[in-house]
């Protein structure tokens, strides 16, 4: 290929892309933050601590998330539930819960480890702070409100798709809570505040009484 031919072919490439872009095809960027790119459903974003539908916290302060964390960025201290005003349905609850977002690698092992689906990812990803102390998210910031929306949204988070955000919790697990690696079988997640119990995903069966055969097939 001579230099002239190489030149012409190069010009053709850019010319073709120019035509493609101005005719509306081929554009690969979005005018962020006005338009946000649609994120994958299981996007590993900022964590939240979920609540049951009745408003009780799901976290039981077991520290399994802290144990599973490879970056050692989660600090949990449990405490006994007060008998007259329990915070969570069980015996104990998460008294202190902190995640250092500067160290977190968003691997999702805490979400895997959690026995009650208390901690899950969301699709929020704008977590920049102006000092290091703010990067440590405390329980106050992590816990969702009664409507299932994360606390302390950032200024730019208002651009996030709230409907997408509400779907964040149970789906964020890669495996079923029974510990099976194959993501099949019964829907086993519990209802969450602001969301309720979600319908089964593709590849999962519904509730046992609705879909007996499918669940048996999955168990066998």
């Amino acid at each position, binding site marked *: 290929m001579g230099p002239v031919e190489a030149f012409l072919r190069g010009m053709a490439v850019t010319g073709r892309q120019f035509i493609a*872009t101005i005719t509306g095809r081929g554009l690969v960027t979005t005018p962020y933050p006005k338009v946000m790119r649609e994120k994958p459903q299981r996007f590993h974003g900022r964590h939240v601590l979920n609540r049951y539908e009745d408003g009780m916290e799901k976290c039981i302060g077991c520290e399994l998330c802290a144990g599973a964390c490879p970056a050692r960025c989660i600090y949990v201290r449990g405490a006994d539930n007060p008998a007259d005003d329990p915070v969570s349905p069980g015996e104990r609850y998460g008294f202190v819960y902190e995640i250092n977002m500067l160290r977190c690698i968003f691997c999702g092992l805490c979400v895997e480890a959690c026995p009650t689906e208390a901690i899950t990812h969301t699709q929020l990803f704008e977590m920049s702070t102006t000092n290091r102390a703010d990067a440590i998210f405390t329980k106050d910031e992590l816990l969702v409100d009664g409507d299932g929306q994360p606390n302390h949204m950032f200024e730019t988070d208002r651009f996030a798709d709230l409907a997408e955000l509400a779907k964040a919790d149970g789906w964020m697990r890669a495996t079923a809570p029974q510990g099976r690696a194959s993501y099949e079988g019964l829907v086993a997640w519990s209802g969450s505040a602001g969301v309720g119990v979600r319908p089964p995903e593709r590849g999962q069966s519904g509730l046992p009484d609705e879909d007996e055969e499918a669940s048996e097939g999955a168990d066998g």
Partner: protein
Amino acid sequence: MDWIDVGLVALRVVVIFGLLQVVTILLIWFERKVVADMQNRIGPDRAGPWGILQTVADGLKLFFKEQVTPRKVEFGLYLAAPMLAAVPAFLMFMVVPFGRPVRINLGGEDRLIPIQGADLNVGLLYVLAMSSVAVYAVVLAGWSSGSKYPLLGGVRATAQAISYEAAMGLSLVPVVLFTGSLRLSEIVASQSGSLTFFGQVLSLPAWNVFVLAPSFLIFFIAAVAETNRAPFDLVEAEQEIVGGFHTEYSGLRFALFFLAEYINIFTMSGLAVTLFLGGWSGPTWDGTLPLVVSAVLPTVWFLLKVTVFLFMYVWLRATLPRLRYDQLMTLGWKRLIPASLVWLFFIGGAMAVRQFGLPWG
């Protein structure tokens, strides 16, 4: 020559001064937008509609930035270099006719007002002289900064300018031979009407580009090199010598270099249009359209033709990687200059034959 003439000259100068700055603002935006399109991006879209005010915002930012002066600079030349870049850039466009001369009755006298800064009888030489002066700005900026990268950029500018100025000058000689004038308005006038080829009138405009295509090609390549634009931007070369001659400049002084670069691009495009694409000539439908429209249409044709060249500049920039230094020199000395010499010899011979007949005939 009375006070009205003086006023008209002053008015033209001010209008061109303003026009060039507006053009620069639009051109930088245009370049960023087109390059973005070629890379499947959106480009600037925040300031104003379609981001058209982005350059205004950037310019204002540069106005308010500190003008850092490194300790080792030769202060006088360091200060003079940006001005030396900007002033010839403005001056060079002054001779380019960008509209048909308008005849207006002013002060009881019919006056023919040329739509250009000054109609010099040595217009083309003046342009070449001014583009040579502009090179001094780069060289002096590189030298006076007292820093190694600007110095390298300045050294590169020297060699590049000499090589490509020769090619550019040689590519313009056939135009002068062909049209018989150095006056740009006459060069434009000679390209009006239809093309005559061996006595046959073709349905093409009589633009020089159809007769002098090799000259046009060489001129355009040399013009890209002369304005230090990609792929000949070795003088700036961000990746190798971190901006070259303007590394040590900041704030308004840096803005002046930028301004000069884009005005030069516009001027070179305007020159290419004037010399090869018939300048402002184009259909004006005189008599059928209102007088004002007929008077403005030539300027519109000029700007449209220039836009084609500006797009070419941006297209080249978005496509081609920077030449290596020896490639630059090879292209200049071993390709363009011999090619323009051969072409000049050929066109000179053809002109002589047309005038005196064949030597053996």
